[in-house]
């Protein structure tokens, strides 16, 4: 794999449009197939990792019968689910029912197209990298909604409405949390952002990372924001009526989203492929793994929130904090361009802590019960 990456990096820099040639197609093939296979491989490993880790967190063993250490557990799941009966409800909007998994899956993979695995080694180094990611991620809500609507099931449509409301609410903090990074880096291209990180941005922007991480947890519907599949209220979420491979595609999409958002967190805030001694791609994968394990840790620790708490958290807590973060960062960069990194980071951290303390006084646990 490293050889392939270097080949890609050698071919990559600034292809001219007229070069409809060999290099172009090789680049497309290496990175296109590379991204998809790496993603699917890591989904299989990470599903196993999550189930083992959650087991450990709950003082259990986790899957260990299928293959050595249970490593083949996800393979068994794939085989089983591939040979499950395919059900399309008779009242469903059949065309949309069929298209929905594809619409949900495609944008998630597309987001990886702008993530560098080494200096200049990426599918397409767009000038608008971060905006591209934001734009593509806003399409995922459509896939979810199509699935929920087309199923002709009251629970699935309710779940889809809720999911879209949640995605819509957390999209704003997510987008705004990255503005601070863009201000410091002065570029939207993810390759440039990684290259400017001599100090990882998590040190300069702890508040930004905090917002980004929480908002992305909500965007991928992970615990504590997994309201869409709150089985005590909504059966199984927007994919109730999906069985077999179509359901598996949604399941795959959920895990791909988790991995993609770990990747983005690693790339934007943790220094991406940068690191000593090891080859760049190993560093990137390592950082993705760490972020993913963190997500699993949160999943096995926190209980699920209520819908009004989820929405209130986005609009009343994260959004003002994101705006505050932009204010502080922009004042630093515009007025004192030579600020030392530690001062900037410390100020940011102090604001984050003060804000959390202030807000925790404002909100009381419990509160009123609400209807759906």
């Amino acid at each position: 794999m490293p050889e392939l990456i270097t080949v890609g990096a050698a071919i990559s820099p600034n292809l001219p449009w007229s070069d409809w040639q060999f290099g172009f197609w090789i680049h497309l093939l290496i990175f296109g197939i590379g991204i998809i296979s790496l993603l699917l491989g890591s989904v299989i490993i990470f599903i196993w990792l999550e189930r083992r880790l959650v087991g450990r967190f709950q003082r259990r063993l986790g899957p260990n019968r299928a293959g050595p250490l249970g490593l083949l557990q996800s393979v068994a799941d794939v085989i089983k689910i591939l040979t499950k009966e395919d059900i399309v409800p008779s009242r469903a909007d059949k065309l949309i029912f069929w298209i929905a998994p594809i619409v949900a899956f495609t944008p998630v993979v597309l987001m990886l197209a702008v993530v560098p695995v080494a200096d200049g080694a990426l599918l397409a180094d767009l000038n608008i990298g971060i905006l591209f990611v934001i734009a593509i991620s806003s399409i995922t809500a459509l896939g979810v909604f199509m699935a929920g609507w087309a199923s002709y099931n009251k629970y699935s449509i309710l779940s889809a409405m809720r999911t879209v409301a949640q995605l819509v609410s957390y999209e704003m903090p997510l987008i705004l949390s990255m503005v601070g990074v863009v201000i410091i880096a002065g570029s939207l291209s993810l390759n440039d952002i990684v290259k400017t990180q001599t100090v990882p941005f998590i040190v300069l922007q702890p508040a930004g990372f905090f917002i980004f991480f929480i908002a992305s947890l909500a965007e991928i519907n992970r615990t504590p924001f997994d309201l869409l599949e709150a089985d005590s209220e909504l059966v199984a979420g927007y994919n109730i009526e999906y069985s077999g491979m179509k359901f598996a595609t949604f399941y795959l999409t959920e895990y791909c989203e988790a991995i993609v958002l770990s990747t983005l967190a690693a790339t934007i805030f943790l220094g991406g492929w940068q690191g000593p001694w090891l080859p760049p791609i190993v560093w990137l994968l390592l950082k993705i793994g760490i972020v993913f394990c963190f997500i699993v840790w949160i999943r096995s620790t926190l209980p699920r929130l209520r819908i009004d708490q989820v929405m209130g958290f986005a609009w009343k807590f994260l959004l003002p904090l994101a705006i505050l973060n932009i204010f502080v960062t922009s004042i630093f960069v515009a007025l004192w361009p030579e600020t030392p990194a530690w001062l900037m980071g410390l100020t940011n951290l102090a604001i984050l802590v003060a804000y959390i303390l202030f807000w925790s006084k404002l909100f009381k646990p419990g509160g009123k019960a609400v209807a759906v």
Partner: protein
Amino acid sequence: MEIRTDSTSLDIDRHEGNLIKELRSSSTKPVTEPSGWLSEDLKRNIFLTTVDNVLNWGRKSSLWTETAFTACCTFEFISLSSSRFDIARFGMEVLRSSPRHADLIITAGTLTWKMAPQIKRVYEQMAEPKWVIAMGACGITGGIFADSYSVVPGYNRILPIDVYIPGCPPRPEALLAGIELLRKKVEKRSFLQG
């Protein structure tokens, strides 16, 4: 399929009553388990191919359970899925609430005629291939309530059962043994046989 638009709750109650009556009159005899219909001769002649082995390995290693539990035997299942007995070792900790995703329905506990149409419907809406475990005395014969007017005398009146686990309630170890039996059964299925 037609959509009902009952206007009053009385209509809904009447419809439900009719359903239960119908189900009750139509299920006086136990349903036989599907492979029981096969002749002895055919059973002996089934041989498994590599494809079968792979498929059955996949199916037995990831039996996802439908969360349709009717009564108190559920607590033994909860105990089985938590840390001491840890059903997750077999890849079974994935509990799905939708029958479209599930492979296995563990009928834990007493089933009343009022609940019977729902359980039957859940079973019918599960995607093939699917298995059923009858858990506990009530699940097998109705247990101490067998003579009651309101209790279904055994799940096998409405569903084809694959494995019976006796006990009142069965201990988690017994349930584990039953799951082992089911895994052995899954292993022997040939897709040519259907």
